[in-house]
């Protein structure tokens, strides 16, 4: 070790340091775990809600409605597993303990997948109303549901589509832009460029 190296090391070790706030760490840890449980619960509820409807209200649904809900469930399942597949890069990969080069590649890949996930959810905002419109059309011309009942359900679906879908689209659009920006920033800072 040269004299200059020794001096640098000595100066480096002399800097003031801040103490780790262990109490705050405990709080962060607890919050993080709760958030993870909540996400898993919400994902599970989204998928399970469809068969639950079939299970609890079998007599209130016509055969046509049962088939329609079954198709929706199939679609939700495909969507759920597709999202799971997109998240495969972060699942089962311990990003913190990887070498820096591997870590940087994984982070980039995850940002790219997050952009794709946001895009897929935006597409879902266009497809969902089609399911409702399809239901209403089949029910109306197929004469599967009583007219009064159909009007009541159509109103609920219309409100859901008008209020929820644009909000969901906006949220996903913001996420897509956010991850694009993060990816650009990350690539500009990455030591491997």
């Amino acid at each position, binding site marked *: 070790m040269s004299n200059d190296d020794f001096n640098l090391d000595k*100066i480096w070790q002399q800097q003031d340091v801040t*103490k780790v706030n262990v109490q705050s760490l405990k709080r962060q840890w607890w919050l993080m775990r709760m958030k993870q449980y909540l996400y898993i619960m919400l994902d599970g509820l989204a998928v399970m809600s469809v068969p639950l409807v079939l299970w609890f209200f079998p007599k209130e649904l016509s055969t046509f409605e049962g088939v329609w809900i079954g198709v929706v469930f199939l679609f939700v399942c495909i969507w759920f597993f597709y999202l799971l597949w997109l998240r495969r890069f972060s699942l089962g990969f311990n990003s913190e*303990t990887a070498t820096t080069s591997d870590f940087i590649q994984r982070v980039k890949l995850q940002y790219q997948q997050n952009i794709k996930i946001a895009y897929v959810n935006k597409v879902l905002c266009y497809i969902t109303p089609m399911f409702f419109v399809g239901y209403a059309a089949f029910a109306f011309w197929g004469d599967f549901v009583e007219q009064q009942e159909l009007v009541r359900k159509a109103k609920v679906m219309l409100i859901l589509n008008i209020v929820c879908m644009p909000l969901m689209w906006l949220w996903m659009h913001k996420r897509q832009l956010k991850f694009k920006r993060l990816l650009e920033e990350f690539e500009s800072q990455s030591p491997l460029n």
Partner: protein
Amino acid sequence: MSKDFNAIVSEYGPLLSRIASSYEANQHLQQELLQEISLAVWQSLKAFKGNSSLKTYILRVAHNKAVTHVAYHAKQPSSERYCEIESPHSTIATSATNGAFTDRRPSPESDLAKQHKVNLLLQAVRQLPVQSRQIVTMSMEGLGYQEIAEVCGISSTNVGVILNRAKKSLTEIINHE
């Protein structure tokens, strides 16, 4: 919280703080980064299999966390003026050499000169590209070429080249002042 983690915080806390200061000049963000790094270290401890030294492992986790943090905060507006956390220069706090916390007395002239050099070095380190910064800080924390190469995922020859170049530029800045 396990006793192990408490022991690790008291032993490696100063090291983690120095890593945080090499990525963040803003005191508030530095404290935030230190907490993030410590949390990441805590989470990763269960995956430690003893293939490297604990210090190398902790440095790997710390640098990976710091890279993410810097990328995320890169274009956030600077909030130095509104920082509520006092600078370590004005706090009672703590100065650490080789991992041990000691009380800091009010600075006489020699301390001011020392502080000036420390600030110069920190500013210069923060201006280095991320990879050079990682390599030079790990070297100043006592890691050898091979250990640094394992953390960064590059060859030890490459580490040597980058380290020599970075240290030369840092020494020039320090000696020039």
